[in-house]
């Protein structure tokens, strides 16, 4: 399968600050790929280079087979963008705004279809200024979809949402995936990456520290055995939980004592993620 996005050795500095320090990844067609990381990790810089907003300092980048730095109109015909912050004209209605943007594309989606897709039917003829934050964000998504793109960039699409609004947004993004769109998503929410992404790259200080499916990220993690001895919590981390547990329990049985508060657990994606963020990047 062809790569929708191919990034090799991408670098970008702002003055003395190196925001992206040589990252490489590839997104297949139809895949939902997530750049996960804390604020300042380089997610937005990366996505904005792919969107054509920023020039890169080094590296090779193709988006749908084209160099986004050249700002080809053909590329913009095929991509949709949800920016982290952007508004629309407050006095114009939802349908009017979508119709204006639909006019920019050669082969747009039907405006009412888009309104339905993002669940704004009841606000179709409402002016933007009366929409809630969540509804505005849905319109942002609608504006990214109205050109019927093959590739959609979503830069922190649910930041600031309440839990219900976030779940609704997730449903919508799953809907896009079902339509066969390739999606690049950035987020600093781990659960969002876990819920939506086929593959996740964890970004820290401008470097990808790990990459894989959500299941792979957890699978690579070690198992944790906890128990209490003389009132003190002991933690054993192991890649061979069966053997470690057997050794521990047979010793305890031989000595005739109980392992208090014994607990065996696989470390969650959250543990893995937080650990990745703590480790020194070298």
């Amino acid at each position: 399968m062809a790569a929708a996005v191919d990034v090799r050795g991408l670098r970008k500095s702002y003055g003395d600050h190196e925001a992206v320090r040589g990252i490489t990844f590839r997104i297949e067609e139809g895949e939902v790929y997530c750049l996960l990381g804390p604020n300042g990790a380089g997610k937005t810089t990366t996505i904005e280079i792919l969107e054509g907003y920023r020039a890169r300092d080094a590296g090779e980048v193709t988006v749908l087979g084209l160099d986004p730095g050249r700002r080809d109109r053909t590329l913009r015909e095929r991509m949709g963008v949800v920016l982290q912050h952007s508004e629309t004209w407050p006095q114009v209605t939802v349908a009017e705004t979508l119709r204006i943007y639909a006019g920019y594309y050669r082969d747009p989606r039907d405006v009412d279809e888009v309104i339905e897709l993002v669940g704004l039917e009841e606000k179709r003829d409402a002016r933007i200024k009366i929409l809630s934050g969540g509804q505005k964000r849905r319109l942002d998504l609608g504006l990214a979809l109205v050109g019927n793109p093959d590739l959609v960039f979503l830069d922190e699409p649910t930041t600031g949402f309440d839990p219900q609004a976030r779940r609704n947004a997730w449903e919508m993004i799953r809907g896009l995936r079902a339509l066969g769109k390739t999606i690049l998503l950035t987020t600093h929410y781990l659960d969002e990456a876990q819920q939506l992404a086929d593959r996740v790259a964890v970004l820290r200080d401008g470097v990808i520290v790990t990459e894989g499916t959500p299941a792979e990220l957890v699978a690579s993690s070690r198992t944790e055995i906890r128990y209490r001895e003389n009132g003190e919590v002991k933690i054993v981390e192991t890649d061979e939980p069966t053997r470690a547990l057997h050794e521990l329990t047979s010793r305890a049985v031989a000595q005739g004592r109980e392992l208090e508060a014994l607990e065996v657990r696989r470390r969650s994606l959250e543990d893995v993620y937080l650990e990745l963020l703590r480790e020194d990047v070298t």
Partner: protein
Amino acid sequence: MSLFAHQIRADQLVFWRNRESAVFVFLFPVLLFVLLSIVYSGEYRGRPVTDYLVPSLITYGVANTAFGGLAIILVVRRELGILKRIRATPLPSWMYLSATLCSTLLVFTLQAAAIMALGRLLYDWHLPSEWPSLFAAFLLGAICFAGMGFGAASLIRSAEGASAVVNVVTLPMAFLSGGFGPTRDYPEVLQAIADALPLTYLVDIVQGIVYDGKPIWEQPGAVAVLLAWGLAGTLIAARLFAWEPRER
């Protein structure tokens, strides 16, 4: 429908739907014409004062609409992230900017027509015999002031400050340069300041046409000054115009 026409229609929808811009940018010069025509009466240089006021208030419209209105629209859209989002669509940037310019010129044209129609209706004002020259002067003025508008938009940092900055520039400029009434009795120092302002040269061209029957091509000095201002604004924009919010 071509993309360009689509964008002009979109710009017109956005402009008229926003009551503040419709009132301030479009209506304000028209209202000032009505007010000043009530305040000033009698004759100026042997002709009814309306002969002065109609073209002069249209020159204020040039500054207010082609310069001020355009600059405010561009800054507000930049700070809201509207310009940034447009850059991700297939609409070419040059087409977006030229449609914004044409849409502004269209608003100015309607405004000039409204002032002339009111002059006719209320004071039986008639177009001077050199009207083609007069229209050429308005168009030249609007284009040069739009160039300055693009330049100003590139220099203004915040949406909140945009209309304050623009009004601090345009209102005193119109007052000093004769846009609101004759300046021959102003103190010399004010007249000296006026000589440095671009609107003064547009007012001069218009006065030359109306009172001295001098067509625009016989006033190359003033035309050159206007073009220089317009070019300066355009060059500033070419260097500093930004599509992304400054205040983030």
